[in-house]
């Protein structure tokens, strides 16, 4: 499997890639799940609504323990949605046929290339970077909303603690330098988030593919099978890591220390 997602058709600016098909499929599944679980919502839950309530309430409480009541109420739709979207994509990528169903493309100059019809949504840097950049956009908005421009800048560059005299002047310089590092760290965050998720998912798929190649074709599933279970776990952990880190980044910039939040 190559590093990049491949377009299954050249039309529409080539946006119909094998990974985007999986992303739309995941989107469709999520939409269907939402309609089935919350279409006819009742006060006494039953069936799928029960499961959806358990899932959403669990996620809400989990993010609430990190962000606090005020922030989680405002931002849960993003963190909960990101977690579910990554999870569904990661697990769908483990379905039989993903990465294995496809066709050979013959080149005019000779040689051929195997093009899989489906590719894990998060095994595409475009998808993971889209999520990371979207997060940075909402992070900036919420950080501004919570702190204001002055507070936002002060949060990054202003000295923390109570200093006086010469110590204060030294601390201003020190915290300014720390602020510059903080800005670099903030700028690196979307890159780190994108590559961490992409690397883990793509690496997992590569592992499965290589393991399948170790044995004859009719036994290909065998060595990969135990690693499929591991990948199920990796899929969950990576969904958790991405959304958890995003929540922590937001909490760091919106944290008012000992101040009372009103």
């Amino acid at each position, binding site marked *: 499997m190559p590093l990049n997602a491949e377009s299954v058709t050249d039309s529409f600016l080539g946006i119909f890639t094998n990974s985007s098909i999986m992303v739309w499929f995941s989107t469709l599944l999520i939409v269907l799940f939402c309609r089935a679980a919350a279409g006819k919502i009742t*006060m006494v839950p039953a069936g799928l609504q029960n499961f959806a309530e358990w899932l*959403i309430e669990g996620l*809400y409480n989990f993010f609430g323990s990190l962000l606090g009541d005020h922030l989680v109420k405002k931002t*849960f*739709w993003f963190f909960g*949605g990101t977690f579910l979207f990554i999870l569904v994509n990661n697990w769908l990528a483990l379905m039989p046929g993903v990465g294995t169903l496809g066709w050979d493309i013959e080149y005019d100059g000779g040689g051929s290339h195997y093009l899989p019809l489906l590719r894990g949504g998060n095994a595409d840097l475009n998808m993971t970077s889209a999520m990371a950049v979207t997060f940075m956009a909402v992070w900036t908005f919420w950080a501004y909303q919570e702190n204001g421009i002055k507070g936002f800048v002060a949060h990054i560059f202003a000295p923390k603690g109570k200093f006086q005299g010469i110590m204060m002047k030294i601390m201003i310089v020190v915290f300014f330098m720390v602020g510059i590092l903080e800005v670099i760290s903030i700028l690196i965050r979307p890159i780190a988030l994108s590559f961490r998720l992409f690397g883990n998912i793509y690496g997992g798929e590569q592992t499965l593919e290589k393991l399948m190649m170790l044995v004859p074709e009719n036994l290909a599933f065998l060595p990969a099978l135990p690693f499929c279970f591991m990948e199920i776990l990796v899929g969950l952990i990576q969904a958790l890591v991405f959304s958890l880190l995003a929540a922590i980044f937001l909490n760091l910039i919106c944290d008012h220390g000992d101040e009372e939040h009103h």
Partner: protein
Amino acid sequence: MFTLLAEAGGLADTAKEIGRTFGWKAPLFIAQVVNFALVLYVLKRFAFGPIQEILEKRKNRIADGEAKLEEIEQKLADSEQEKAALLEAANEDAKRLVDEAKESAAALAEKKSQEAVAQAQNILAKAEEASRAEAAALKAEIKKEFGRLVVETTTQVTGKTLNATDQKRINKEALSSL
């Protein structure tokens, strides 16, 4: 400054190279941003929104229920206390009424008993008086009969008719000897 710009230029080239290697393309990236935004919208609008709303409603209903339960328990405790107080008051009233009834019954019995005694004495006195009157009447009749018998006997023995004075005198003598 130039070094920094060159570094920045180098960084941009590196970024482009990484992008090419990993197949990062602006149209694909934008398409995925749209996809992601769509998923978030769908989840917020059709799953998180209604489910969180129902969870909130349920939480409020449970809290209301708990509050009402506490209120009911408080009312129950109050009413138990009130009931106990009422029962105590009723018991006291009942006891007082029973005591009063007992006292009244005793007084009534005493009164009735006295009335009965008085009535009995009255009846006895009347009976004694009637007996005395009857005895007097009998005595008078006996006297009269005795007198008549004495006069009659005397008339038959003497053979002469006695006048009223004789009769009166003989009767008087005979009666005084009784």
